[in-house]
C-alpha cells in the first residue's frame, strides 16, 4: 500500500465529511434536506447533475472499452451527450417551474400525483416503489465498484473496503442531505474533469505525438480507427439510445428541480454539457492513448487502463489525487441515489400515507433514518458481489428511462394527458424493458430502452385520448404553468 496514495485518499474523504458538516448547519427543513431549499446555483447544479450521472463507468468502463475495441465505442458517448443536452434543453426549465406550481413538489412521485390531481395515490405509490427498489440495488452495485477499487488500490479486505466507503458516503449524506450531496458532487465533478484532462494529455506527451497513438492503434488493428467497424445500423441505434435514459432518471431530474431559478438554467446547461463532452472526450482518449502506451505489454483487464496510467505516469501524490477521481465518480452517483431513496421514503410514504401533518423536524429525522436504513440494505446486498439481486441493476437505466422518461416529457408539454395515461405509460414502459431484455435475435437485439420508450409514449397518448379529459383543476394548473413560463416569470 502506497502511503502517499493512502494519505491523499484520507484527505479527500475527510474533505467530503467537512462538506457534509457544513451542509448540516444549513439544513433546516425537509425541502432543504431533499432539494437544498431549491437554492442551487447553476454551476453546482450542472456539475452535480453530471457527476451523479456519470458513475465509475466514465473512468473505468468507457476508457476500457476504447482500449479493448477502439473507436466504434464512441457511439454510446455520442448518444449520452445528445440525450443530456435535450434533457437540459427541453425538460429542465419546465420541470423546475412545474414542480413549484404543483404544490411545491419535491420528488418525482410527488410531482406526478400533484400534476394529475391523483387522489387515489396510485401514481405516487407505484413510482415511489420503482424508485426505491431500483435505486437500492443501484446504490448497492455502486458500493461493490467502490469496494473493489479500495481492494485493488490498497489491498484492503473487500468487506472492510465496503464498510469504509459506505460509512463516509452515509455520513455526509446523513448529515447534510441534498446540499452535502450536491456540493460534494460539485467538487467530485471538478476532480473527475481535471483527471480526465490531465491523464490523456500527459500520456500523449509521453508518446510524443498524436500520430504515435493513431499509428499504434492502426498497427494493432486498422478497424480500431473506424467508428463503423463491426457496427450495424441497429448496433449504432442501440448504443445511441442510451441517451434516452436521461429523461427518466430521478437523481438527475432532482437537480433540475433544485436550481434556484429558471433563469439559472441556460448557464447550468452550458456548464453541464461542456463538462460532460470534455469529460467524455478525455475518457475516450485515455483509452485510445492506452493502446499505444501498452502496445508491448497489453493490460489483462482493459478497465484498469486509466488506473494503470495514473500509477505509471505520475508520482504517488498526484496519482493519489487522480485515483480519488475514480472514487469521486462512484461516490457521487451512490450518494445521489441514496438521497432519492431517502426522500421517497420520507415524502412519498411517510408524509403522504402515514403522517400527513408531520413537522419538518420529524420529516428530516425520518429522511436521515431512511438514509441509514437504505445504506444498510445496500451494504447487505453488496457484501456478496455475486448476489443475483445485483443483476437487477441491468434493468435500472433502461427501466427508469422507459417508465418515467416519456411520462415526464408529456406531462410537461401536453395538457390533455391524464392520470390513467401516465399510469399506463409507466407500466407499459417498464414491462417492455423487462420482456424485451429476455428476447434476442434481429430486432430484439436493440437496447430495450428504445422499444420501452416508444411503447410508453404510445400508451400515454392512447390511454389519455381514450379516457375523459383531465379534471378542471389539472387543466387550469397546466394553463397557469404554460402562461407563466411564456411570460418568463420565475416565481409563482
Amino acid at each position, binding site marked *: 500500500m502506497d502511503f502517499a496514495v493512502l494519505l491523499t485518499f484520507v484527505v479527500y474523504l475527510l474533505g467530503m465529511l467537512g462538506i457534509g458538516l457544513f451542509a448540516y448547519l444549513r439544513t433546516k427543513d425537509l425541502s432543504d434536506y431533499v432539494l437544498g431549499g431549491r437554492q442551487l446555483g447553476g454551476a453546482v447544479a450542472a456539475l452535480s447533475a453530471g457527476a451523479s450521472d456519470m458513475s465509475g463507468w466514465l473512468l473505468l468502463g468507457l476508457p476500457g472499452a476504447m482500449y479493448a475495441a477502439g473507436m466504434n465505442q464512441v457511439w454510446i458517448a455520442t448518444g449520452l451527450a445528445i440525450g443530456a443536452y435535450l434533457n437540459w434543453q427541453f425538460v429542465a426549465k419546465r420541470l423546475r417551474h412545474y414542480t413549484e406550481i404543483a404544490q411545491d413538489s419535491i420528488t418525482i412521485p410527488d410531482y406526478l400525483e400533484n400534476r394529475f390531481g391523483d387522489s387515489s395515490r396510485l401514481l405516487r405509490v407505484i413510482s415511489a416503489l420503482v424508485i426505491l427498489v431500483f435505486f437500492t440495488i443501484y446504490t448497492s452495485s455502486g458500493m461493490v465498484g467502490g469496494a473493489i477499487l479500495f481492494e485493488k488500490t490498497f489491498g484492503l479486505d473487500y468487506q472492510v473496503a465496503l464498510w469504509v466507503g459506505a460509512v463516509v458516503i452515509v455520513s455526509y449524506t446523513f448529515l447534510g442531505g441534498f446540499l452535502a450531496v450536491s456540493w460534494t458532487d460539485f467538487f467530485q465533478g471538478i476532480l473527475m474533469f481535471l483527471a480526465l484532462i490531465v491523464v490523456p494529455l500527459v500520456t500523449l506527451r509521453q508518446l510524443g505525438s498524436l500520430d504515435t497513438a493513431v499509428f499504434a492503434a492502426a498497427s494493432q488493428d486498422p478497424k480500431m480507427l473506424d467508428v463503423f467497424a463491426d457496427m450495424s445500423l441497429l448496433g449504432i441505434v442501440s448504443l445511441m439510445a442510451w441517451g434516452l435514459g436521461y429523461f427518466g432518471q430521478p437523481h438527475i431530474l432532482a437537480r433540475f428541480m433544485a436550481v434556484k431559478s429558471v433563469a439559472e438554467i441556460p*448557464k447550468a446547461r452550458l456548464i453541464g454539457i461542456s463538462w460532460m463532452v470534455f469529460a467524455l472526450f478525455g475518457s475516450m482518449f485515455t483509452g485510445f492513448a492506452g493502446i499505444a502506451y501498452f502496445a508491448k505489454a497489453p493490460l489483462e483487464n482493459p478497465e484498469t487502463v486509466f488506473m494503470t496510467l495514473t500509477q505509471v505516469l505520475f508520482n504517488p501524490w498526484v496519482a493519489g489525487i487522480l485515483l480519488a477521481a475514480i472514487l469521486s465518480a462512484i461516490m457521487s452517483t451512490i450518494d445521489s441515489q441514496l438521497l432519492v431513496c431517502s426522500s421517497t421514503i420520507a415524502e412519498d410514504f411517510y408524509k403522504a400515507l402515514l403522517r400527513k401533518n408531520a413537522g419538518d423536524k420529524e420529516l428530516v429525522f425520518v429522511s436521515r433514518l431512511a438514509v441509514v436504513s437504505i445504506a444498510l440494505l445496500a451494504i447487505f446486498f453488496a457484501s456478496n458481489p455475486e448476489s443475483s439481486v445485483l443483476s437487477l441493476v441491468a434493468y435500472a437505466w433502461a427501466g427508469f428511462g422507459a417508465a418515467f422518461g416519456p411520462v415526464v416529457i408529456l406531462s410537461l408539454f401536453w395538457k390533455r394527458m391524464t392520470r390513467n395515461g401516465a399510469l399506463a405509460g409507466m407500466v407499459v414502459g417498464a414491462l417492455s424493458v423487462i420482456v424485451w431484455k429476455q428476447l434476442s435475435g434481429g430486432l430484439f437485439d436493440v437496447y430495450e430502452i428504445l422499444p420501452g420508450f416508444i411503447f410508453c409514449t404510445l400508451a400515454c397518448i392512447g390511454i389519455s385520448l381514450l379516457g375523459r379529459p383531465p379534471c378542471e383543476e389539472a387543466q387550469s394548473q397546466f394553463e397557469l404553468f404554460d402562461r407563466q413560463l411564456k411570460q418568463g416569470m420565475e416565481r409563482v
Partner: protein
Amino acid sequence: MQSPVISMESWFWCLAPMLLVVVLSVITYFTERTDP
C-alpha cells in the same frame, strides 16, 4: 493496411454531434439569457 488518416475521417460522424451540443449550449445560453 488502410490509411489511419482516411479511417479517422469517419470519427467526424460521431464526434461532430458531441461538439454540436456544446455549440448549441453556447448559443442558447446567449439567446435565452436575454429573455425577459
